[in-house]
């Protein structure tokens, strides 16, 4: 039995019929074909699926699409502005904040909120703030550097 929902994703409004059990991350990836948001663990731990929902960073594998009816969502695809990278994306590039890149979309979505909420985030704040995002490659060092440098540059935008 489908339910019709309407969501605004990266500035575009979509109306779709979804099965209630459809998770938001699958709705974004399979229905809207926005495959930048990754699925890492499926058990709410890794943060690869992090998106912004009505201004909050959330794990989209742990929400139903029907819960998001009427919401405004931003995914990693919505950060760049007309082809120029968001300052947080640029900082990840400049500081080599990624290796395989799998965790990166979720990491960047969490980091942009972190810096928006706390523009003066210390290294400790950054490490704690990214607790819900796991990276199996980098050892986090350059991720923390990237977020710190974006924060310094006023990176929340």
């Amino acid at each position, binding site marked *: *039995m489908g*339910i019709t929902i309407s969501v605004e994703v990266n500035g575009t409004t979509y109306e779709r019929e979804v*099965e*209630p*059990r*459809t*998770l938001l991350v*699958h709705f974004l990836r399979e229905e809207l074909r926005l495959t930048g948001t990754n699925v890492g663990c*499926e*058990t*709410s*731990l890794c*943060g690869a699926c*992090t998106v912004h929902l009505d201004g*909050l*960073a*959330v*794990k989209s594998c*742990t*929400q*139903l699409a*029907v*819960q998001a009816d009427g919401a405004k969502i931003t995914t990693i695809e919505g950060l760049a502005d007309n082809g120029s990278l968001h300052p947080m994306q640029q900082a990840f590039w400049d500081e080599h904040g990624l290796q395989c890149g799998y965790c990166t979309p979720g990491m960047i979505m*969490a980091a942009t*909120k*972190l810096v928006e909420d706390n523009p003066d985030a210390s290294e400790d704040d950054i490490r704690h*703030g990214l*607790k*819900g*995002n796991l990276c199996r490659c980098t050892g986090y060092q350059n991720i923390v550097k990237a977020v710190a440098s974006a924060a310094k540059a006023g990176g929340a935008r």
Partner: protein
Amino acid sequence: MFPSAFDYHRASSIDDALDLLASHSEAKFLAGGHSLIPMMKLRLAEPGVLIDIGRLDELKGISEDNGSIRVGSLTTHAALAASEALRRDCPILAEAAALIADPQVRNKGTIGGNIAHADPASDLPAVLVALGATIHLKSKSADRPVAAADFFVDLLATSLADNEIMTAIEIPKLGAGTGSAYLKVEHPASGYAVCGAAALITIANGSVSAAKLAFNGVTAIPFAADGVSEALLGSDAGDEAVDRAMAALAVADPMSDSYASGEYRTALARAYGKRAIRAARDRAA
């Protein structure tokens, strides 16, 4: 991984939620979904009907009157951690909420869902027991206040009846002279509490006039170490008095699993109970 199929209803009011509950057997409320959805994805829970209460503004928010703070059941962990009223008059609840998982989980998870789920490794149950909080439950015919100490019945089981919704949690304000602390040993992978110690201490004229110590994670339901609390009364709460009082700690039936044996959990309770009492004492001054 995704849940088995279910019917979805969005409640428009508390009464509507209770009507929906009455007209569907096998229905469950959906609040933040951060305990229920993971369970449903693992097919450990397969409710036929979900009643989404997530938009009921009447269940959200923190308000105060003279002696107490009323926290709506749908208030998120992030909102608890950020609350000025809690930080001022009941800091232990804000402190414990800030230690739950990570920012994304705290943005969605709610206090009502946390205690209704009654996971022994959660952080809020023992804090509410130590505080002597009152949990407000509502059915179509009656409002029923339940003391936190009576709310938790067994592993993942509470005294919430099949026809009830939790509306709010009422917490007494901690007066001057009362210090509080919540300390947690977290599971390195999940972040849940292997042992969480909640301590409250009131010191008047240099001696302890009230004390409470309770633990998460150690037993199937929050464990109030009343022997320790009583042994603290009248003492100066100095390190020696705390050590003496901690000798009264007796943990019956500690939980055991592949990560931590019952013996280890009991040892953690000993160490962290002591540290929590000392921290609460230092803050009472």
